[in-house]
């Protein structure tokens, strides 16, 4: 995936536009992106690394991080499998209402996350459409880790699907036909031929979903109940500690989350070559 950058041959001598435009780009990004990110790290470590470490290893902080990772993980597993299935069905079969389904799957990203959380509450909450039938049996869906997973699934619903479906659409159908004529069952064809071609899309879809789910705040704060040590995710922990005035505690987790998303996108960027291997 190397691109050859052509030098501007039509300019005589030293091209002033080059350093100027690059400098301009970096300068514009400074207050918008670089400085906010840098300040997390500067502030978080200003009181010494041992303070930072103490804030990070506080039981509630560790719990919040673990909860975020676990709920995001399960939401990712579900959405990748679902996205794979939905993409398969929607690119293989043309049926009445197909476009409506595609739009519906894509909808959750367009809905404000607070609205998504509220909608889940209205459905599963103790007085919700479904929840009121479950409550008498002692089944409580909201204000649990399960609720967080549901919220994560909802807000990241179309991400994996959106990455996988185009690959399905452009996939050469004769590959699958060839596999069939060679003697493979549908399942063997899917496993040996279709899935390997989707490898890149699945990995990047999963990483996107996971990154988005780990950072989810708006819907989580509504459905989780925000109980420290029980249903408080990392973003909620940051918000709670900030409200309590414990800036260091909030900052320690913020650093971890920032590093984490940085890591995910580095993986996506570096692995792009590997993922696209033909």
């Amino acid at each position: 995936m190397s691109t050859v950058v052509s030098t501007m041959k039509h300019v005589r001598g030293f091209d002033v536009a080059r350093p100027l435009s690059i400098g301009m780009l970096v300068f514009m990004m400074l207050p918008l992106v670089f400085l906010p990110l840098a300040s997390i790290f500067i502030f978080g470590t200003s009181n010494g690394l041992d303070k930072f470490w103490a804030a990070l290893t506080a039981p509630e902080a560790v719990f919040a991080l673990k909860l975020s990772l676990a709920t995001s993980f399960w939401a990712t597993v579900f959405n990748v499998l679902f996205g794979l299935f939905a993409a398969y069905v929607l690119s293989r079969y043309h049926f009445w209402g197909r476009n409506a389904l595609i739009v519906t799957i894509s909808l959750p990203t367009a809905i404000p996350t607070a609205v998504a959380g509220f909608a889940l509450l209205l459905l599963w909450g103790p007085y919700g459409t479904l929840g009121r039938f479950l409550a008498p049996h002692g089944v409580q869906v909201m204000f649990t880790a399960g609720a967080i997973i549901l919220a994560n699934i909802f807000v990241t619903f179309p991400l994996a699907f959106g990455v996988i479906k185009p690959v399905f659409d452009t996939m050469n159908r004769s590959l699958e036909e060839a596999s069939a004529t060679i003697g493979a069952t549908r399942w063997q064809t899917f496993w040996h031929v279709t899935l390997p071609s989707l490898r890149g899309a699945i990995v990047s879809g999963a990483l996107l979903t996971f990154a988005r789910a780990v950072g989810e705040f708006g819907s989580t704060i509504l459905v989780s109940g925000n109980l420290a040590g029980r249903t408080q995710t990392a973003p909620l922990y940051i918000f709670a500690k900030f409200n309590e005035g414990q800036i260091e505690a909030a900052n320690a987790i913020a650093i971890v989350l920032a590093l984490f998303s940085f890591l995910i996108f580095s993986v996506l960027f570096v692995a792009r070559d590997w993922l696209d291997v033909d």
Partner: protein
Amino acid sequence: MKAKRVIENQKSSEFSKSAPQVAASVFGISKRFGKSSVLENITFDVAEGEALVLLGASGSGKTTILRVIAGLEQPYTGRVVLHGRDVTDLPARERGVGVIFQSYALFPKMTVEKNIGYGLRIRKRRRKEIKQTVNDLLALVQLEEHRKKYPSQLSGGQQQRVAIARTLAYKPEVLLFDEPFGALDTQTRVHLRREIRALLRKVNVPAIFITHDQEEALELGDRVAVINKGHIEQIGTPFEIYNHPATEYVATFLGAANILEAVVRDDYLEVGSTRVPAQIDREKFKTGSCVKIVFRPEDVSLSRSDFLKTGQLKVSSGIVEEISFVGAYERVRLKLEPNGGDTCANGDTPYYLTTQTPEAPTQKSIIATRPKPEASSVKLNIGDRVVVAITSYTILPTQEQRETSATKS
């Protein structure tokens, strides 16, 4: 070992060459998409080790025939039989045919070895056996040094050889080639089709090719079936269909053809007022009936006098309209002189020309080609009046005659 056994098996069946065994046959295949009929009553068979070419324009239905045999599409009526086994109701994966797709359809994430071994892997063969077969096939298609490469790292010709080896691995009943050279440049395709022809002779697996390229069809096929609008116009050896086309479509599809109308008389044909001695199949053509005679540009000989060599039959005289140099030969377009005679009852156009050449078909013109020695010994100029004679021709039955003879048989 397996691959060798494939070869040996088929070699051992060579003793039956004198009475060729039918390897694959289709009976009365028809297919419809909605109301439009795509295939009508397609019937043919392929002998063991034979190469049959389905030749037709795009949209003629030839690809559908192939897909029906492969099991990728269901026929509306008709049966597909492979080595005596009726496979019409079997899914593609249980038929054991080898399809070489136009795009080769090699699995992009598998190496050459993995691609070739795929058929055996999904059949759960032992690893040792798979390895042996893959090695044999790599040797057969001469790709040993590319075994670890991915398809995208190979040239078009190499990819195609991988595709063939991949199907040979599981000993296919028949090989089906879908426009195998469509994606290649002229030089490579000429080279490749000779290579494939040689390879097929070696493994002796029956093959069905699909192409729209008449030159390719004539060179590749032991027999050629010309497909037009979903039915077979003619099936025969390349020599037969080129020199004795059964229909006007076949005549014109297989290269430039001159077609003249003529009237059948007792022992000659009347072209205009010229009598052309002919041996006429009385079964087919009644005296007084109107027929078309077809002859190739290379069957035309032009001379300045009425003095003709034996075997040359004068049909008319004409004026040279255009002379063009086409490399190996010279092409002359002639305007035939109206020579009276009420050729046919409806005879509005006694002569006309159909060619695949880009120039618009001009009525009452014919095209002749002359090899270099002749072109240089008898120089022609535009406007010259010449005697037009032909050395060989075919009488085409009219549409009605074809239909009656078809119902008889």
